[in-house]
């Protein structure tokens, strides 16, 4: 059974076509994957990689998501570079949807009712949800008979208890606008936490796991007995860890101070804390950890070094905080671009954690990039893993389950 996974951003569409066979991870075959960027702009960039063949790149104007998705289908069906004979081979489409509000606590088959509810959540994710909807509409048009499913970034965190998701602001604002913490990266936290439980040979429902999804966007989750009980992103993704360009946790008073001193309106303030802060803001160099590491460690740049120390320090504080939230921790997992490809990052974060039962395995960690690896010592009470995430797989598996009943 072939499932097409789509991740539609405001000006991009990422896709993977997966052959699910049994639905189990080990049987999944990725037939093709790719991305279209700069949708709606001149010279859109198209990248397409069919299994076992060379990557195809081209540049061509793509006016909107429908045209982009149409092109994806054409490529999948192309006699030379395609992997499908007929579009009827696509049994389902799985969409990544950013914000499911309080309505969605799991993946769903998309119906008109679901679409209506997704529209209600647009206010909470004004950049992402409309793009996700565009992808759904385009698919309805292009493949009207194929079932579509939605997997929400927020759904996994809907199990948080009220004392974790409520802000200490007037309660009326929750009633009125549903202002609360939602969290994101749900599919990733779910995937790697479940994987970690398997690796430990324990039941998912019986372990306490802290998952660190460290990419350009970054969040941490506390997963207790298979359920997310807390996560660092909130109503919006700006909360929590320090990220490539996002400030993460910051004194609200400091925000007011800057808005006042620099005469920033809300939009400018939003831009500041989302796009100009984080690793980029402190290092004054780059939002890319590799650049900053090079400047800090090879060139001795003070601000880059500080940015890294802050980044590590905050992850460490969250790990401690979630250990307390769960009353202990059995495993710590690193994933996301930085988590998977940053052995130094993992080592710095895990330093001085012996008192909590973490025995870090430096030899196993050194130089390991984008590979699943246990980086704690065999006798470490708390296990530490680097696990490449696979959000597309979660989306495809959920779609598989939904249409197979």
């Amino acid at each position, binding site marked *: 059974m072939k499932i097409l996974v789509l991740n539609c951003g405001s000006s991009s569409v990422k896709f993977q076509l997966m052959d699910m066979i049994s639905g189990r991870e080990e049987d999944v075959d990725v037939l093709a994957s790719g991305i279209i960027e700069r949708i709606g702009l001149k010279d859109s960039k198209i990248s397409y990689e069919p299994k076992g063949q060379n990557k195809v790149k081209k540049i061509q104007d793509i006016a909107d998501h429908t045209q982009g998705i149409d092109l994806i289908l054409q490529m999948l069906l192309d006699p030379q570079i395609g992997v499908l004979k007929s579009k009827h081979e696509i049994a389902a489409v799985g969409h990544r949807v950013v914000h499911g509000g309080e309505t969605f606590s799991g993946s769903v088959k998309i119906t008109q009712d679901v679409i209506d509810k997704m529209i209600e959540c647009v206010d909470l994710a004004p950049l992402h949800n409309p793009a996700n909807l565009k992808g759904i509409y385009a698919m309805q048009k292009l493949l009207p008979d194929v079932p579509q499913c939605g997997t929400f970034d927020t759904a996994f965190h809907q199990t948080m208890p009220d004392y974790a998701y409520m802000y200490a602001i007037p309660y009326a604002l929750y009633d009125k606008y549903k202002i609360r913490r939602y969290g994101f990266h749900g599919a990733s936290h779910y995937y790697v936490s479940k994987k970690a439980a398997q690796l430990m040979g324990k039941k998912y429902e019986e372990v306490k796991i802290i998952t660190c999804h460290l990419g350009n966007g970054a969040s941490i989750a506390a997963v207790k007995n298979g359920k997310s009980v807390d996560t660092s992103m909130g109503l919006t993704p700006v909360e929590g860890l320090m990220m490539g360009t996002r400030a993460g946790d*910051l004194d609200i008073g400091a925000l007011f101070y800057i808005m006042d001193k620099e005469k920033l309106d809300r939009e400018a303030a939003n831009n500041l804390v989302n796009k100009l802060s984080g690793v980029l803001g402190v290092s004054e160099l780059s939002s890319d950890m590799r650049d900053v590491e090079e400047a800090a460690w090879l060139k001795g740049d003070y601000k880059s070094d500080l940015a890294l120390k802050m980044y590590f320090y905050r992850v460490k504080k969250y790990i401690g905080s979630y*250990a307390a939230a769960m009353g*202990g921790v059995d495993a710590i997992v690193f994933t996301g671009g930085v988590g998977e490809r940053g052995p130094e990052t993992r080592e710095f974060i895990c330093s001085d954690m012996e008192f909590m039962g973490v025995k870090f395995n430096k030899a196993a960690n050194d130089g390991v990039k984008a590979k699943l690896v246990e980086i704690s010592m065999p006798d470490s009470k708390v296990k530490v893993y680097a696990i490449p995430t696979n959000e597309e797989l979660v989306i495809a598996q959920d779609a598989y389950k939904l249409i197979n009943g």
Partner: protein
Amino acid sequence: MNILVLNCGSSSIKYQFLDMCNNAELKAKGIIERIGLKDGIVKHKRFDDVKHQLITDVPNHEVGINIILAILTNPEYGVIKTIDEIKAVGHRVAHGGENFTKSVLINQAVKDDIEKCIDLAPLHNPANLKGILAMEKLIPNVPQVAVFDTSFHQTMPPEAYIYALPYEYYDKYKLRRYGFHGTSHKYVAQRASQFIGKKYEDLKIITAHLGNGASMCAIKNGESVDTSMGLTPIEGLVMGTRSGDAGLGVVLYMMEKENLSLKAMSDIVNKKSGLLGISGLTSDMRDLRKARDEGNEKAKLAIDIFVYRIRKYIGSYTYVLGGADMIVFTGGIGENEELIRKMVCENLEFAGIELDLALNNSAKGEPTIISSPNSKTKVVVMPTNEELVIACDTNKIVSKNNCF
């Protein structure tokens, strides 16, 4: 040596009069409220419980301080014959910025530096300065000392105090985390170390100052390495009416939805949030607890959120310190609310924290060890006394004598 301790707020002055030669005995204390408004309220209490109250217009801090001096020298309810018996004045100063890492004798340069920090504490520092200037005028030859709320935290490392904002804001405005309640964190950490018979400088300590304002501090070998309040006192724990940590996205979203100005938004997170905001009832923990016990859901939620935030900071600071030897509770709630202490420490055995429930239940406003004997991390209730710290620092600086 007699020392007058002053804590000048924007519309109030609190004072204490202590005899440092006599084991820092508290001779008198009082408060003036509603300064600048009609019908100011003056309340004074002497060590022997003789009280004096009056209602009178107090147009400014200078008039207020004059009233305090008159009260202290009053033959009936005062404690000294003439103002010459005041040997030094200790002032609480809210914000010392990066300029002050400890208490100092006040001179012109110090006053200038306090003034430079006004931008960082626009409500408090001007009031503190008013008190200093009034004192200089009224008793010009008496030495004055400034004790800062922020100075204890100046030992934090940059990764703890720099915000993940463009670095230029630090250069330009000294925008960073400062922390507050420094005198309290230091005092209770020192006293609690003595109390358990250990050396303060050898310990890793987490202090929780839980009052109407609330903050926590991680102390390693006698130095603050992190604290929960930041540039302003809004950050960190849930407080009586302050939100503590809340996402920037939340604030910007609310401002947009409710069309709020900065001032209005600031008002919400400072004065209408926290325990009051969630419960919709009260900012007072005692009342809230009563409501919770009577089944009020939102009162329960407010307490749950309050406790959960403290637990998270304990975990966080435990990792920052590489394990904590002691946790100290202080402030009105920390000293008196056994339920909060119990909820905070529940299920933290993995971090070596184990309460003795009976000891915890009996601890109220008195120094008490409330952890069980085999708890790896000691848990201690220690009443704070910021005025005493101010008096001691003042005494030390003026007389070069150590106090405790």
